[in-house]
């Protein structure tokens, strides 16, 4: 799955640690999501979407 978490985080001027703290997950999890090595669970994906104020489909793309 592809995602735009890194770009959205950058727009806010947040570090990975900042985003991790806001989502109550580890920085490793944020890094793994941004590098495509881990797909978040549905609750976490919705939390991310709510934090950035975007629809979930605009952030996560199922890809090929």
């Amino acid at each position, binding site marked *: 799955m592809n995602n735009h978490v*890194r770009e959205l*985080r*950058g727009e806010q*001027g*947040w*570090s*990975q*640690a900042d985003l*991790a*703290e806001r989502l*109550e*997950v*580890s*920085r*490793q*999890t944020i*890094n*793994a999501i*941004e*590098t495509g*090595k*881990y797909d*978040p*669970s549905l609750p*976490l994906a919705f939390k991310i979407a709510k934090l950035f104020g975007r629809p979930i489909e605009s952030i996560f793309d199922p890809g090929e």
Partner: protein
Amino acid sequence: MNGHEGSGANGKQARTLARRYLREFVPAMLGYVILLPVSIVLLLRAGLPTAGKVAVALLPVLPMVFVVRAMLRHMLRQDELQQRIELQAVAITCAVVGMATFSLGFLQNVRLLPSPPWAMLWVLPLMIGVYGVVRFLLARRYR
């Protein structure tokens, strides 16, 4: 703007979880370190009845229960990715240690390997050691 910030799970949350874990783990491990020699000395010197020997021999197990409890509580406090890594690490550890001790048991059964009475004591340290290595390798996959 910040980009990729390297490996590791450092951060406020990780430090908070680590502090909670150490608050539970350290006293329990200290209890083990203290009770182990006490148990050994009592078993060697005191003329204990069988029931007493059992109780004294099992003394070091009490603090280890709290060590294992601290490890489990730490695992359950982790976020979803960390818990996935923990689950995989524990599953692989059980498979590796289980198969190793299973195989050794067969060899001991036909006397191809010695069966020292203290052998069973090494199963838990072996599990903890294998778990540590496996967890480290699994976590690297997500960096």
